[in-house]
């Protein structure tokens, strides 16, 4: 029953999306206010129905209803409840439903909350959102039905991929998707504004919180995913330049550029065409990522069951939406009045530089991700690995960091280079001091990591310089948002540079009682014992960890064996210290009493994810700040009107 209810909710949501699109199209074409008034409620109900379908799927997974094909293929009744719950989106159909649910809910939220832009533009925006939703509803209903029943239901399911049986699955996909699909709002806003030719500061101010919110989710999702891969895969790395990681990085880069250019549009009414373009590109990258993962044209650790038919379906949707938006852009943007101009040395100038550099990095990641496909089309087989991305994107990212340090210290419209250098005294000093200090303390450790550390110090100082000489209590919250986000980049960069330069790794085979040293730690293998879990059994090493003279805690890395489906995974054991992490993995036995141990000492590696969270926090503060200011302005305007009425009434 529950499965059928979910399917009905999905069909209803799809028909409401069709209705929403038709109403919006008619309302915009005829400028009909009565039709337009119906669009908002339809969008809200559509979002609610999508949410209901998702809830039904979760319910089916939680109760292990083995008559539903998806549950049989991806779940098992002996699984802990958290993985039954999260398993609902640990597969192609379920994750697609989550995708569409977020799309519907985001559209509903826009309909419910947005009051700042012209009603006609909003109607067009909701129409665009419905058009996207309609295509993906069709994809679910015709090519990926999550609620399909089996005629002969088996006694139990086939289980979930053990790598996914981790609390990370409950958290990573929903946040990442909220970011990915949240960008659809920016896309729809851009399409709506192109349809009504209404690109201006009001449009930018309305779009900004949605872009920021999606960006915050995307940042958290990427950070969480990076940490998950780090401890779950047991490879000790935090970023692999895997096509799917790139697929999440590309929308993030575009969204980062977008939220900066949207500020220029909101504050100074410049960069109109560029902002609209970025809004289209950001969500296009999300859709492209979805297509890449699900069509099987690229191989990756994230690949879903490969199905060319589904790939074709998504490709057609992609061609319609992205192609349509780009064609609309090409025909309409010429009709949008040009915005304000500005000098090269100015806040706008630095933001343009930021946008260009981010776009170049985006281009590099895009080329690196697609090059294997292109090369395959020409008959050579190759893969593009971390060396390409690091060499090509690294230096540009460092230039971007320098621009990021200077940007917030520039005035809008026009500034002098000499004044900038004066304001940059402290950051430049910090860069120089940390460069010298790190070389004196650690010796030469490579140009890129050294520049990374030095620039991180400079950026950290530069990011708090905008607070100098301000009344800290009266500083707007969104300024704090910028400060915290930029500081987060500095922290993250420092972690990347330090861990890439100073990581120590060793692979040893040890008998019980023997020790190995890595970094500042001495690791002793105390014993191996079998452990039984809910749906797995494991061999667990007991590692005594010693640093200096003190005794440390016991670490217990495991080699786990899952029976449904039969797979072995390595559960790393990690010791987090203030200045880094000790990362241990248990390998195989050689049959003669020796056990393989892989040990890493990764100094300051935790800063990478801590920085990521700071960046997200900065985005959240920025949303809050803009909201608070809007509210205050509204109140002031209201008070002014009342005061005027009061004066008039009393003739003063």
């Amino acid at each position, binding site marked *: 029953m529950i499965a059928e209810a979910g399917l009905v909710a999905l069909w209803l949501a799809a028909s409401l999306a069709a209705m929403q699109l038709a109403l919006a199209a008619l309302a915009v074409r005829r400028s009909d206010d009565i039709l337009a008034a119906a669009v908002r409620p339809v969008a809200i109900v559509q979002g609610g129905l999508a949410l209901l379908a998702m809830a039904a799927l979760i319910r089916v997974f939680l109760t292990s209803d083995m008559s539903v094909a998806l549950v049989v293929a991806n779940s098992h009744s002996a699984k802990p409840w958290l993985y039954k719950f999260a398993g609902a989106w640990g597969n192609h159909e379920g994750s697609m439903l989550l995708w569409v649910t977020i799309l519907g809910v985001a559209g509903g939220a826009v309909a419910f909350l947005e009051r700042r832009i012209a009603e006609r533009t909003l109607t067009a925006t909701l129409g665009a959102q419905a058009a996207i939703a309609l295509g993906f509803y069709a994809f679910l209903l015709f090519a990926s039905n999550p609620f399909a029943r089996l005629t002969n239901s088996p006694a139990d399911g086939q289980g979930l991929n053990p790598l996914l049986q981790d609390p990370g699955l409950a958290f990573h996909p929903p946040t990442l998707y909220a970011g990915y699909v949240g960008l659809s709002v920016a896309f729809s806003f851009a399409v709506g504004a192109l349809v009504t030719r209404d690109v201006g500061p009001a449009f930018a101010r309305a779009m900004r919180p949605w872009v920021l919110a999606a960006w915050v989710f995307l940042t958290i999702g990427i950070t969480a995913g990076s940490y998950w891969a780090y401890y779950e895969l047991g490879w000790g790395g935090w970023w692999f330049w895997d096509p799917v990681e790139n697929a999440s990085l590309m929308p993030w880069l575009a969204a980062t550029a977008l939220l900066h250019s949207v500020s220029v549009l909101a504050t100074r009414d410049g960069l109109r065409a560029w902002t609209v373009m970025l809004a289209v*590109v950001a969500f296009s990258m999300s859709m492209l990522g979805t297509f890449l993962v699900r069509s099987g*044209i690229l191989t990756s650790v994230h690949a879903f069951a490969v199905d060319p038919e589904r790939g074709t379906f998504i490709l057609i949707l992609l061609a319609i939406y992205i192609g349509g938006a780009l064609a609309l852009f090409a025909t309409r943007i010429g009709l949008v009045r040009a915005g304000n101009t500005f000098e090269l040395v100015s806040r706008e100038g630095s933001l343009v530089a930021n946008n260009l550099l981010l776009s170049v990095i985006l281009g590099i990641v895009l080329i690196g991700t697609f090059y294997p496909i292109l090369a395959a089309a020409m008959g050579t087989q190759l893969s593009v690995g971390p060396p390409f991305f690091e060499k090509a994107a690294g230096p540009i990212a460092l230039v971007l960091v320098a621009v990021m340090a200077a940007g917030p210290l520039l005035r809008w419209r026009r500034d002098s280079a000499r004044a900038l250098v004066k304001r940059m005294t402290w950051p430049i000093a910090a860069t120089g001091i940390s460069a010298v200090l790190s070389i004196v303390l650690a010796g030469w450790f490579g140009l890129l990591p050294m520049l990374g550390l030095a620039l991180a110090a400079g950026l950290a100082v530069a990011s708090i310089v905008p607070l100098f000489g301000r009344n800290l209590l009266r500083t707007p919250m969104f300024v704090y948002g910028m400060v915290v986000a930029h500081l987060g980049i500095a922290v993250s960069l420092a972690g990347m540079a330090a861990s890439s330069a100073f990581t120590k790794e060793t692979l040893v085979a040890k008998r019980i009682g023997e020790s190995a040293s890595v970094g500042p730690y001495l690791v002793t293998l105390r014993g191996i014992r079998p452990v039984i879990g809910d749906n797995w059994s494991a061999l667990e090493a007991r590692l005594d960890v010693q640093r200096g003279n003190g005794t440390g805690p016991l670490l217990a890395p495991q080699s786990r064996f899952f029976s449904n489906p039969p797979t072995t995974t390595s559960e790393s054991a990690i010791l987090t210290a203030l200045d880094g992490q000790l990362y241990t993995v248990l390998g*195989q036995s050689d049959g003669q009493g020796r056990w393989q141990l892989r040990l890493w000492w990764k100094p300051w590696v935790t800063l990478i994810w801590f920085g990521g969270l700071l960046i997200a926090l900065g985005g959240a503060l920025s949303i809050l700040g803009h909201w608070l200011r809007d509210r205050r302005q509204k109140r002031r305007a209201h008070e002014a009107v009342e005061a005027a009425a009061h004066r008039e009434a009393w003739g003063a």
Partner: protein
Amino acid sequence: MRRWLLWLPLAIFTVVVVFAVRELRKPSDRTVYSAMVGKAVPAFDLPPILSGKPGLSAGDLRAGQPRLLNIFASWCVPCIAEAPQLMKLKAMGIPIDAVAIRDSDTAIAQFLKRHGDPYARVGDDKNSQVQLSLGSSGVPETFVVDGRGIIVKQHVGDIRDEDVAALAEAWRKAR
């Protein structure tokens, strides 16, 4: 802004779509094509690892008769899995040589006693140097080398039952 510039994003996107369509229409091919195929085996000379079985040099692979060259180790689990298939290939009359990677004589002797010994020669590659120069990155891997020392096929991973025919065919063709 120039008008044509506005159409540029759409043009780029169209190219991406065309490539994606081409790629989708092709049946997916998961074979790893070796860059070493068609090239000569690099020069090497490995000492024997077992008493009573000769070591292996590049010259041995140029002796006129095509051979299989198996890269293996006693500590590698998939090597155990492919051992029966190697014995099958040997039974077809195909000569097989081997390079043992980072291994010891006692471990190898025990491995061959337990899982069968298909090898004519076994070279001792203490630090994987020959393995790397052959363009092999893991164990097990199997090369088909024609009588003139030219590599005609590289099989990555363990030899499954369904791979036996293809390897035998490649060996037959190399004659």
